[in-house]
């Protein structure tokens, strides 16, 4: 009897705390949307921020975030997928492989601010790239690579052994098997992993403050020549992203509507990150259906 009472109490405590987490999430999302969504308008999404007056938008920041994401993926995908393929297909169990595993683990545990500082030292100062999109993209690539390597390795390991054996039986080379048999099968998980990582890149700020910088030059959206300093496409210009902007507005915003700007920008950021997460699942499923015979 007594043990049963204890069991009931414990069960209800666990259930209550678990539901508390769900309510916490709904509360957080509800709060962000409630505070921010009223402030989002076409003008807010496209106009430039105002430092002292009200009515500023987040146009350049939004563009910078997306452009930075594209640049980062250009760097990360070949390196991350390659590293993952090595770990899944070429690495033999032994001292070297476990050392590489340790390196990946350490690299993924480094705080993002340390990676930002490293970027400041090496990319911004040593390599003379300055506060620029390219420094930011490289720093984010470092931040993102370990995760990418791990998801790629898992995706390749999940491919059924028979597929590989069939390729070997045909006398194909290992690289041919990887690129034309294993890669298509692993592609859905690779794409899902990459999009989820993109969500992380999108919201990252600490690593960018010291690499991509905390300001944007006035951009001329009619100038698409990547070498001109005011062109949005110039990868060597400083760029403040949406996440960095939210931080800046919150901690040193002096405009009369800085609270609203922060709320609106947070809502935009969260909506975009959620969109990344949902689309990752959806695209993963669609590609999986395309690539395999399952329905």
């Amino acid at each position, binding site marked *: 009897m007594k*043990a049963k009472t*204890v*069991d009931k109490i414990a069960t209800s405590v*666990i259930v209550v*705390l*678990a539901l*508390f*987490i*769900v309510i916490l*999430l709904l509360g*957080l999302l509800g*709060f*962000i949307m409630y*505070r921010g969504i009223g402030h989002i308008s076409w003008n807010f999404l496209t106009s430039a921020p105002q430092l002292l007056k009200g009515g500023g938008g987040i146009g350049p920041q939004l563009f910078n975030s997306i452009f930075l994401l594209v640049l980062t993926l250009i760097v990360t995908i070949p390196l*991350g997928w*390659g*590293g993952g*393929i*090595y770990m899944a*297909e*070429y690495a033999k169990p032994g001292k070297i492989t476990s050392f*590489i595993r*340790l*390196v990946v*683990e350490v690299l993924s*545990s*480094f705080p*993002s*601010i*340390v*990676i930002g*500082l*490293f970027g*400041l*030292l090496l990319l911004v*100062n040593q390599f003379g790239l300055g506060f620029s999109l390219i420094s930011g993209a490289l720093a984010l690539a470092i931040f993102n*690579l*370990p995760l990418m*390597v791990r998801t790629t390795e898992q995706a390749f390991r999940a491919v059924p052994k028979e597929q590989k054996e069939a390729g070997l039986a045909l006398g194909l*080379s*290992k*690289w041919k098997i990887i*690129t034309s048999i294993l890669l298509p099968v692993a592609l859905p998980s690779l794409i899902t992993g990459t999009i989820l990582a993109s969500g*992380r890149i999108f*919201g990252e*700020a*600490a690593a960018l*403050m*010291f690499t991509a910088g905390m300001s944007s030059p006035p951009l001329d959206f009619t100038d698409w020549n990547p070498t001109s300093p005011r062109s949005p496409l110039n990868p060597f210009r400083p760029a403040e992203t949406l*996440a960095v902007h*939210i*931080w800046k507005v*919150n*901690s040193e915003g002096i405009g009369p509507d800085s609270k609203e700007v*922060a709320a609106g920008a947070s809502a935009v*950021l*969260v909506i975009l990150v*959620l969109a*990344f*997460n949902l689309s990752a699942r959806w695209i993963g499923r669609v590609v999986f259906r395309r690539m395999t015979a399952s329905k």
Partner: protein
Amino acid sequence: MNNKLKPRRPLKEKHYWEEWTGRIYTSICVVFLIVVMFSIVYFVASKGLSTFFQNGISISEFLGGKTWNPTGEPAFYGALPFITGSFITTLLAALIASPLGLCAALFMTEIVPGKGKKILQPAIELLSGIPSVVYGFIGLSVIVPLLRSIFGGTGVGIAAGCLVLAVMILPTVTSIMADALSALPKGLRESSYALGATRWQTIYRVIIPTTLPALLTGVVLGMARAFGEALAVQMVIGNAPHVPTSLLESASTLTSVITLSMGNTTMGSVHNNALWSMALVLLVMTFVFVILVRLLERRNRV
């Protein structure tokens, strides 16, 4: 006979080259990772150590000094306030997040296995997807005013910092704990039920003790995340350079000081080097957390 067999050699040669492109390309990717890790350690360490070797500040003054006044005459470079700030917020955040995470993980795997996972899994994933600056914004506009109205004062401080951190590390803690619990062999659970134990007795006496190292791995990884988190904490903690004496007092962490001061100091000055030494402390702590996780994993295998 005109049954001409194709010569085998060119095919083999083609294979040879294909084989090597793959091998070399993927190896370069891995070597890149190794080079990056070592250069991070090298650059941060060389900058961080120059405070002690070039500027002549003793390690004990840096780690134990209670006064941080780099612009004063004479200047003081005691980082103890920030080190304690970092440790206190991290520990408190772990204390709040671990029981919550454990309950969520038990809910998903023991109480309502199928349905519980369907409700909680997406919630946990969405929580982990919210960027840290947004957590900072929420902390600033919900937690800080709430603490202010309950306890008075400004509302910013350690308490606000560790509440924000606790929510941020909750997904990490929960997902690792849930993985650990679901990896437990079914037989253990079933034999406990067969002996007539209730669910709670099974959880408390069998499941938690056997999975303890793996559960602790979740806590350590959560703490590692909390220790390195910069912006969300910086926004709500108040950033005063004192050793905190109460939870409601404004304080600083290593990350928050670096975030605020790095841009305002010139490269190579003593003040700047002292900030790099703090980055070095963060780096060293990362290694400590990685070693802890490795030790726990070894315990888990036995």
